[in-house]
């Protein structure tokens, strides 16, 4: 008789940061948890990898935006993660770059910028409104069907509190919030300033990862989401992988078992309740609860559509997750030089989005499945000092408006075009770049999907648009992490509140399943 596997309370599918946060949260509360990762590495989109011998690079995510202080505090990550806010330089065609440092807008050469006040006001508003919404990210979305019951009272109270805080803003800001929350960043910016690098930067910050152009309604909300914990991203030392390492440390210290190279092929379900998983290869692991950090649609397929109502399957098939973002990592032989940027500034974040129109035009191509004429790029050179000792430099670029649904599909030639397009665009600002490249890694959205299980290679596993948020995320009727079959939970970015290296979805899901009593 085959030896039966040790029984766990909870199995987590996928060792991305959300899966790991779920595991750590439950383990801290004394649950026996096993995390199963199909890749050989832990970390999903947030991991580091060895791009060339000895040189570590961030696989996909390279900066922290909605790094959630509450999640970090609960798990005791704060002291383990060394991160610092960094300045942003938005590159200009004419060499008059702009810089956002310590929240203020100036020209990169230090001169005053005429739109500084307008920028500051937009930033104030977006940060304030983002902060208002932030607590919602740490709760299960309100269940409208329990609106009047005791169980729903907590969520209803949260909404009521939100309403109250909104009222505390005073009429002026409250009205402004209600006016702009569903509007588009293009108009919001250009109502206050001429089009240029500042508007371009705001536009780009609103659309990273999204299938939306600056003119698309809903992009202001995306910016609020991004700025909820401050408008400036921070650069973790040793990359986003360091965050994953910290969570893994916490998880392991609490007894979480993490298995890599362990791909789950399906769930075991009896009497409409999960009993465990079956791995590729056939071995089975049993548990009372299975959490999936995959996208909502692949999570449904893993359980099998027969366990879901027809309408639910239809909704899950319709979740929009059309990835628009590629990752290109470059290994350079020498320190790159950017005209108009000082040595001190080179450690910052760079954005190529010289105008809001530029961003919109790039989207206008990509929405039809075409390469943009010129993509929107965010790049950092995260380990300049470390690598410099070995005589190598890393440039980590997020390339926006590279469509998942590329016409003709993603083959090697398409990937070469992605590489060429990225290098061409960067070269306009980094003149000697081409000769300087030792190695290139280009990850298309299709590749990211294959590797991480994120549908469409989408950062958020599903577009963060109003029709896929809160009570309708991932789909109408499934917003509270419980995913159809009893004991099956969604814990990835596809669930509320969405992606970014925040861990909020993983944490909320873990707390919700405890509340639901599925472990008892």
């Amino acid at each position, binding site marked *: 008789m085959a030896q039966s596997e040790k029984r766990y309370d909870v199995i987590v599918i996928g060792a991305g940061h959300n899966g790991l946060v779920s595991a750590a949260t439950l383990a801290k509360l004394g649950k026996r948890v096993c995390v199963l990762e199909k890749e050989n590495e832990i970390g999903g989109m947030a991991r580091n990898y060895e791009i060339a011998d000895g040189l570590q690079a961030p696989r996909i995510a390279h900066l922290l935006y909605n790094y959630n202080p509450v999640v970090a505090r609960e798990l005791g990550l704060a002291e383990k993660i060394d991160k610092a806010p960094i300045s942003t330089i938005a590159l200009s065609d004419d060499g008059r770059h702009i810089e956002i440092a310590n929240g203020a807008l100036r020209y990169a050469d230090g001169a005053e910028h005429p739109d500084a006040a307008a920028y500051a006001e937009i930033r104030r508003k977006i940060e304030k409104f983002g902060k208002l919404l932030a607590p919602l990210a740490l709760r299960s979305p309100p269940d409208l069907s329990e609106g009047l019951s005791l169980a729903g009272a907590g969520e209803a109270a949260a909404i009521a509190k939100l309403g109250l805080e909104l009222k505390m803003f005073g009429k002026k800001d409250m009205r402004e919030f209600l006016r702009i929350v569903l509007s588009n960043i293009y108009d919001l910016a250009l109502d206050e300033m001429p089009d240029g690098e500042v508007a371009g930067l705001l536009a780009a910050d609103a659309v990273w990862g999204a299938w939306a152009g600056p003119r698309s309604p809903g992009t202001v909300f995306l910016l609020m989401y991004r700025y909820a914990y401050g408008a400036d991203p921070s650069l973790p030392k040793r990359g986003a992988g360091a965050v994953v390492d910290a969570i893994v440390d916490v998880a392991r210290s609490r007894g979480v078992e993490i298995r890599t190279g362990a791909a789950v092929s399906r769930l075991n379900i009896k009497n*409409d309740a999960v009993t465990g998983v079956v791995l590729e290869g056939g071995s089975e692991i049993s548990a009372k609860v299975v959490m999936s950090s995959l996208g909502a649609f692949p999570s449904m*397929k893993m359980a099998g559509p*027969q366990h879901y*109502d*027809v*309408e639910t399957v239809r909704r899950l*098939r319709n979740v929009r997750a059309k990835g628009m973002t590629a990752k290109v990592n470059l290994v350079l032989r020498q320190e790159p030089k950017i005209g108009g940027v000082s040595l001190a500034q080179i450690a910052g974040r760079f954005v190529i989005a010289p105008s809001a129109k530029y961003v919109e035009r790039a989207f206008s191509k990509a929405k039809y499945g075409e390469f943009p004429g010129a993509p929107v790029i965010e790049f950092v050179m995260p380990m300049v000092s470390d690598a410099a000792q070995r005589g190598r430099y890393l440039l980590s670029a997020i390339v926006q408006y590279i469509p998942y649904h590329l016409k003709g599909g993603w083959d090697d030639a398409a990937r070469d075009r992605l590489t060429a397009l990225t290098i061409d665009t960067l070269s306009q600002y980094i003149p000697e770049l081409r000769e300087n490249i030792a190695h290139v890694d280009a990850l298309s959205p299709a590749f990211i999907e294959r590797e991480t299980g994120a549908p469409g290679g989408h950062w958020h596993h599903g577009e963060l648009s109003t029709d896929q948020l809160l009570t309708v995320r991932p789909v109408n009727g499934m917003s509270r992490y419980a995913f159809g079959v009893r004991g099956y939970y969604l814990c990835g970015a596809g669930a509320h509140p969405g992606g970014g290296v925040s861990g909020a979805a993983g944490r909320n899901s873990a707390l919700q399943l405890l509340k639901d009593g599925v472990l008892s």
Partner: protein
Amino acid sequence: MKLFKSAAKPVAVARELLPTPFFDKLDAVSLVKNWHEWNGYLVADVVEAVGKEYFAIRNQSTLFDISPMCKYRVKGPDALRVMNRLVIRDVAKIGVGRVGYAMWCDEEGMVIDDGTVFRYGDDEFMLLCQEHMFTWLHDCAWGFDVSITDETHNFCGLALQGPTSFSVLKEAGLESVADMKPFDLREIEPGLWISRTGYTGDLGYELFTDSQYAHQLWDRLWGAGHKLWGLIPIGFDALEIARLEVGFLAPGLDFQPVHVVSRINRGRTPFELGFGRLVNFEKGHFNGRRALLKHRDEGSRYHLVRLDIEGKEPAKDAFIYSGRDKVVGHVTSAVWSPTAKRNIALAELEAPYGGKVKNGLWAEIYVYKEGAWQRRQKKAVVVETPFFTNARSRKTPPDLF
């Protein structure tokens, strides 16, 4: 059937109500030319006279054209799983060569439609129903290995119902139906399928064939039955009386198919329609199962009940009162039953009326008599059994007359 007029350009869709494959035959014997629309086809309300047609159902035998009914073939390795995913009962219990009555629900446990499931083979079913289910079946089948074809327009059907129907079949050379039990299905001759089913509660069969053989089928039955066994064609109106006597539901009247109503809260659960016994929670997940568990535990909001109403005026559209002044529901269908000699109705009552509370119900009936309206309060009694049952309908082999 030709839905589009010609293949020549420009193509024009048929604008008119289409004749069914049996229309010419019916038209030839119809005295009153009283037609209405059913799924884009012309079908008879009355062929000659309602009374004559009704009594033919209970006394001789009748032909009713069921060709416009929606017919979907579900075929493939996963066919049983898909059918079980669709309906609330356990389809595995419908054997090959058998037919079963079924209901199916949306995710909230509200009835989408009811109909009959014909099991042609291990992996082949036909679903017959009133509502359009093509896209819904495709949605149901997503992720499963089956093919779904819409046979509505190329497969015609006749319901042969009445005490002499077996005699008619025998005369028509189809005596081998003798051993068919109720709900049996058989390909009696190549291309001709017969099931011992019907909507009248009497002895009866339903015959299906490819539309091109429609006239042949009609002539064969007509020749065998018209002179010898009193076979006549009937329309909807006569059928309506017969089906109410047995208590069969009519979608759109006795319940609102939830996919076609655009107003909220019009859906009803199988429990509320009196079909809770059909729901099989043990067979694994099916559509609406989780919602139905909740409905089962929380209890019904409504009860669809059979009423026996005092007097002889059909209680069409009547409000039902508890006591003299509290409205607790309304009549969904009502007729005078010529066989039971009772004034019968189906009515939807708000719980607990019709469930725990069955006494003290009144129907408010408005009666028009030669230019004057009368309002009548008539006592209404909830009846648990059908108004019409007859052993001949189940007897195998059936009696010859």
